[in-house]
C-alpha cells in the first residue's frame, strides 16, 4: 500500500482550476536579474483584462498543434524570405486566420530610451526577439501595450543591409534577409503561415533596472500576423547567436533558468545568469544537437514510468526522431509508440474514474465532477545522464472543466517525427 501511495498524486479536484485572483510569489522579485513569469490569459497578466479575446481551450490546443507543425516543418525544409518578401517590407502578403502557437507565458521587458515596457512571449523554441513597431507599415495585430515607436527612442537605429549582422539573420530565422532603402529586413515565418516581417534594428534592452543592454538586436515588426493574445511580440531564447542568451553571453554566459507557475493564477520567474540561485537538487542532462534544428535545445529521452511502472518502450523509439524542450509548446508530443504505451498504462491505472469526451488532440479525458479528491499515477521522464524528471501533478492534466480533465500528452504523426 505504501508503495502504491508513493507512485500516485492525491489532488483536490478544486485545485485543478485556477483562482480568479492572482496569487503572486515574491520570490523572483528578490533577484536582480529576474523577471516575473505569468500565464498570458491568467489574472496575473495585464493581458488578462482583454477577456473578449481569450481563446477557448480547444482553440489553444489547435494553436499548439499549429506550432508543432511549424517546428516539424523547420526540420523538413528550409524556408526563404523570398516566399513572402522581396525587397520591400511594405509589400508583403497578409494572411488572415493564421496562428503562431499559443505561447502562453509572458515576461515584461523594457525597450528603448526612455524605456517602454513590453509584454513578450518568452520562447526557448525561437531565436529572434521582435516586437510590433510603428508605423506598422503593413499590418499590426491588436496588442495590450502601446506599440513601440522607434522615433521616440534616442538609442534606436536600423541595421544596414550591408552589415554582416544582417546576413546572420539567415540562421536565426531560416530566411535570407531582405533590404529596403538600405535597411536590413528580417522575416520570420512559421509553418502555419503566420509571420513577422520588419526592420532589423538595435536599441537598449532593459531586462531589469540593473541589467541593461545597449545595442540589443531585435526585429521591429512592420507586418505581423498571428494570434499572439495581445502580447507585443516574442523574446527569443533559442541557441542561435542572435538569440537573447547569445547576445547577453558576456554577462550571463548563456545561463538562464525559469519556473513556470502551477496555474494561470500564480507566478513564476525567468532568471538570467548564475546569480539567480539554482536549487541544489538540480540534475543536468547533456544538451543534444538535432540536425537542421541547431537553434533548439535537444534532449535525449530514454524512458518513462507511469505509477512507478516502466513503460515497455524501446530506447530506439525515442532516439529515432530525437526530442526538444520548448517553452512555447503547451502539450508534450511523443512518438506514437511511446504515447500508446503511456495512454494504455495511464488509462489502466485510472480505470476507477469515468472518462469524458476527447478535447481536440487530447484523447484521454476524465469527468471528476463527482469527486472532491482524486489519486492519479505519477509520471517520470528519464533522460540521458541518469536524470529523472518527475512531472508535477499540475503537469499531467490539461483542464477544460472539472468534467473534462485530459491527459496532457499527444502523439506525433509518426515515430520518426
Amino acid at each position, binding site marked *: 500500500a505504501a508503495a502504491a501511495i508513493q507512485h500516485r498524486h492525491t489532488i483536490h479536484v478544486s485545485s485543478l482550476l485556477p483562482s480568479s485572483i492572482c496569487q503572486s510569489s515574491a520570490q523572483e522579485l528578490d533577484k536582480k536579474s529576474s523577471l516575473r513569469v505569468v500565464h498570458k490569459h491568467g489574472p496575473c497578466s495585464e493581458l488578462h483584462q482583454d477577456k473578449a479575446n481569450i481563446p477557448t481551450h480547444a482553440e489553444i490546443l489547435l494553436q499548439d498543434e499549429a506550432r508543432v507543425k511549424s517546428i516539424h516543418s523547420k526540420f523538413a525544409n528550409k524556408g526563404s524570405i523570398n516566399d513572402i518578401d522581396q525587397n520591400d517590407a511594405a509589400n508583403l502578403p497578409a494572411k488572415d486566420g493564421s496562428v503562431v502557437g499559443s505561447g502562453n507565458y509572458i515576461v515584461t521587458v523594457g525597450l528603448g530610451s526612455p524605456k517602454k515596457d513590453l509584454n513578450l512571449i518568452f520562447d526557448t523554441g525561437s531565436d529572434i526577439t521582435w516586437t510590433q513597431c510603428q508605423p506598422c507599415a503593413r499590418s499590426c495585430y491588436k496588442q495590450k501595450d502601446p506599440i513601440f515607436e522607434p522615433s521616440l527612442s534616442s538609442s534606436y537605429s536600423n541595421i544596414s543591409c550591408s552589415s554582416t549582422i544582417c546576413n546572420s539573420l539567415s540562421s536565426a530565422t531560416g530566411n535570407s534577409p531582405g533590404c529596403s532603402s538600405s535597411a536590413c529586413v528580417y522575416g520570420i515565418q512559421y509553418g502555419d503561415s503566420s509571420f513577422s516581417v520588419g526592420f532589423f534594428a538595435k536599441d537598449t534592452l532593459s531586462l531589469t533596472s540593473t541589467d541593461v543592454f545597449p545595442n540589443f538586436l531585435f526585429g521591429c515588426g512592420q507586418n505581423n500576423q498571428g494570434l499572439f493574445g495581445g502580447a507585443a511580440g516574442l523574446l527569443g531564447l533559442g541557441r542561435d547567436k542572435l538569440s537573447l542568451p547569445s547576445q547577453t553571453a558576456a554577462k550571463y554566459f548563456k545561463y538562464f533558468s525559469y519556473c513556470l507557475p502551477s496555474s494561470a493564477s500564480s507566478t513564476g520567474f525567468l532568471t538570467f545568469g548564475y546569480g539567480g540561485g539554482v536549487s541544489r537538487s538540480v540534475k*543536468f542532462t547533456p544538451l543534444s544537437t538535432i540536425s537542421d534544428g541547431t537553434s533548439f535545445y535537444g534532449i535525449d529521452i530514454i524512458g518513462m514510468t507511469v505509477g512507478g511502472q516502466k513503460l515497455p518502450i524501446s530506447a530506439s523509439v525515442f532516439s529515432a526522431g*530525437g526530442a526538444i524542450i520548448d517553452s512555447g509548446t503547451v502539450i508534450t508530443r511523443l512518438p506514437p509508440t511511446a504515447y500508446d504505451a503511456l495512454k494504455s498504462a495511464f488509462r489502466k491505472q485510472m480505470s476507477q474514474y469515468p472518462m469524458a469526451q476527447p478535447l481536440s488532440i487530447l484523447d484521454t479525458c476524465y469527468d471528476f465532477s463527482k469527486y472532491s479528491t482524486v489519486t492519479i499515477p505519477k509520471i517520470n521522464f528519464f533522460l540521458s545522464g541518469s536524470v529523472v524528471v518527475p512531472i508535477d501533478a499540475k503537469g499531467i492534466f*490539461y483542464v477544460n472543466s472539472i468534467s473534462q480533465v485530459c491527459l496532457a500528452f499527444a502523439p506525433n504523426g509518426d515515430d520518426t517525427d
Partner: protein
Amino acid sequence: VGIFGNTQQKTLQVVYDGAKGRLGFASGGCS
C-alpha cells in the same frame, strides 16, 4: 521530433546552461 512542452514543465526549475551544453531540472522550482 518529440517535444517536451510547457504543461509538463510546470513548477520545475529548468536550467539552461548553454556554455556547458547542459540542461538541468529540479522539482519545486517556484517555491
